[in-house]
């Protein structure tokens, strides 16, 4: 039983109700005011090869990473934008698996968002001209939930659809390794 389960107990549950609540349940219906869009082509560079110190996390991560409505929207977009066509429901196919512990281009939410926005070699299309930054970050939050990264309070167990994976509230939390550690 992971520490995550223990954390949900007794009076800590009450604290979770209070502390985690504000961000988890907040619905941001408009992610940014008009006029401050991220112009196309400007996703932050999120690959840091060699021993470079990673950039500090984008402040937007807080708004999306453990945010239940964002993850739920991402879940709907994942099917609607046909991510399942290549990634299936996290198991991978033509595209790499998203529910395992290997992240070729990083498993932080900003790294995933950049992967979606810019596209990646060998077939990941670029979505920055097709989806808003808000939608991309929602998708990134959902993709992280496929490997169990966000708090279990923020993910929905299943979609209203045919069953295609372990319920996400029971999915194990995979460590986020870069893909080459497996080969080392």
């Amino acid at each position, binding site marked *: 039983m992971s520490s995550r389960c223990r954390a*949900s*107990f007794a009076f800590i549950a009450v604290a979770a109700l209070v502390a985690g*609540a504000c961000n988890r349940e907040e619905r941001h219906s408009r992610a940014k005011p008009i006029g401050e869009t991220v112009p196309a082509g400007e996703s932050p560079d999120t690959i840091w090869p060699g021993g470079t110190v990673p950039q500090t996390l984008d402040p937007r991560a807080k708004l999306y990473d453990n945010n239940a409505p964002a993850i739920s929207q991402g*879940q709907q977009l994942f099917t609607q934008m046909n991510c399942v066509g290549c990634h299936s429901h996290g198991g991978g196919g033509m595209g790499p698996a998203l529910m395992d512990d290997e992240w070729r281009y990083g498993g932080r939410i900003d790294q995933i968002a950049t992967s979606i926005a810019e596209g990646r070699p060998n077939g990941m299309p670029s979505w920055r001209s097709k989806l808003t930054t808000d939608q991309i970050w929602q998708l990134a939050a959902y993709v992280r939930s496929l490997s169990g990264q966000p708090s279990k309070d923020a993910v929905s167990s*299943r979609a*209203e659809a045919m*069953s295609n994976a*372990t*319920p996400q509230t029971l999915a194990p939390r995979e460590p986020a390794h870069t893909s080459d550690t497996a080969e080392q």
Partner: protein
Amino acid sequence: MSAHVPERVRREDERLARERQKIARDGPKLKGAKLEARLERTWSRPRGIIGWLATVDHKEIGRRYIVTALLFLALGGVLALAMRVQLAQPDSALISPQRYNELFTMHGSTMMFLFAVPVMEGVAVFIIPLMLGTRSTAFPRLNAFSYFMYLFGGLLLWGAFLLNIGPDIGWFAYTPLSGPQFSPGKRADIWAQMITFTEVSALAAAVVLVCTILKTRAPGMTLARMPLFAWAMLVVAVMIIFSMPAVALASSMLISDRLIGTNFYNAYEHGDALLWQHLFWFFGHPEVYIIFLPATGFVSVITETFCRRPVFAYPIVVLALISTGILAFGLWVHHMFATGLPRVGYSFYTSASMTVAIPTALQIFCWLATMWDGRPRFQVPMLYVVGFIVTFVIGGLSGVIIASVPLDLQLHDTYFIVAHFHYVLIGGAVFPLLGILTYWYPKITGRMMNETLGKIGFWMIFLGFQLTFFPMHLAGLLGMPRRVYTYPAGVGLELPNLLSSIGAFVVAAAVVLFVINGLFSLYRGAVAPSNPWGASTLEWAAASPPRPYNFAHIPVVESRTPLWDAEGELPVVTGLRVDEKEILLTTVVAATPDLREPVPGASLWPLIAAIAVGVLFVSSIFSPWAVVFGAIPAAIATAAWFWPKELKRHPEPVIS
């Protein structure tokens, strides 16, 4: 006694008989002030905060229920005012859609789960033992537990709302909107778990009431002589026992879907979105009768006292209560007429829904016949009865209208329905409640409420209610659906909505006036004798407010109106111990004395058990393991609670 009894056994029996003679009992030798002093000592709970938390006195628990429920009524009412401000004008942008959805969810949930049923339970818990001539309810600690569970459920829901994580799915939370995909986060789980709290509370209170009404009545109070309010509460308690498990099951299945990904309501995995509706409304329809039938009990009580005669055709009223209770379980599909189930099957529910109007119509006749045959005195409680008849019958008839399938298909989920249920709930339950609170106020507090303020309050709430809810019938016919945070201009909805909004503030002012009257009268009201209204039932034989032991001697009942038929003093039975808390159990139908039952003293275990169960419920929103690990403290607390106890002072010697 044909067997030969050995000499030493016979001497032992005689010794034990002499010991038993020494135990102090309530008369015939011990009576008057001496008796009352001893009873007072035995039946009082410990002073201080611990005693307050540990009380098992049904009067204290009943008062707590009533005060807490009225608090929730006020909170729910404030939400309603906010909604009416938003809807006063078309295309309004005062309140955001998300906030508005939370408002109507909280308003409905608060009114239905945290006010309507608990206040009826609270009044019953307070008055039933007094009305039945006994000193305590059955299972007093369970009674205390039920209050704490109710309180914790209310705190959970309102705490969440005030922390901005309140539910926003409507008070009946249809799936799949309340399912894991479309209600992300924990809002819906908090709602569902509030249900679990209030259902456990209601079930506990129902068990207490059934056992109290069936087993603790005064000797001679046969079922045929039992007051109509006690009959109403008996039927209601049985209805609670049969209906609440359905919604507790449905909400637990919802939490299970949301927490661990089961597929009860997932159509794509052979679940069914309609399963929720069936389970919920199987509870939901009896629920509204659970709210209404106690109010009919109130009306019977008030009508009898203020028309100076017992209610006409008592057997008919009893049969009407029982048949309404049974029929109420066969109507639930009338909430689902638009869901595409087979039309011919719907006709059955149309007929059943219309049939259930017949017993109620007979009850109304009986009350009117009582008024005709008696001399009605129009003091405040009786005014509320008149207001009830004028208002509830409109609601009942609009209910007959929507019982018809073709009519319901236009009117379902519109403001016509909102008008209907407010007419039956406010007209049918709140008006009698306000009347009965005025009526039993002297019994509860020892003072009279102010009659003038009461009359002003009645007219304000009666007229304000009509102004608020009558235009909603028209709004529904003009095409306004329910649960809309705004409506377009130009379809004719402006005027009905504006009138409703104005009326809502009049109703709010009337409720405030009622509360002011209640608070003011606590300190400045005329001191009440034990029977200020000249009523006929046993609770008026006790002091106002009653002593902790209710009655110095257990009365004997020889008619339906004991206080009107007793010449001089009421006959009593004697023999209950005064050094231990004890009540007299009588047989179920004929109420002949049966057993003497020890009554538990004040105990903190119900509170501790409620906290343990509460923690179990709340943490199981977040993790399924909480069910396993949270069960441990709950088991410990309940084991400690049920641990067999010894009598504190002298155990009664048993003669073999």
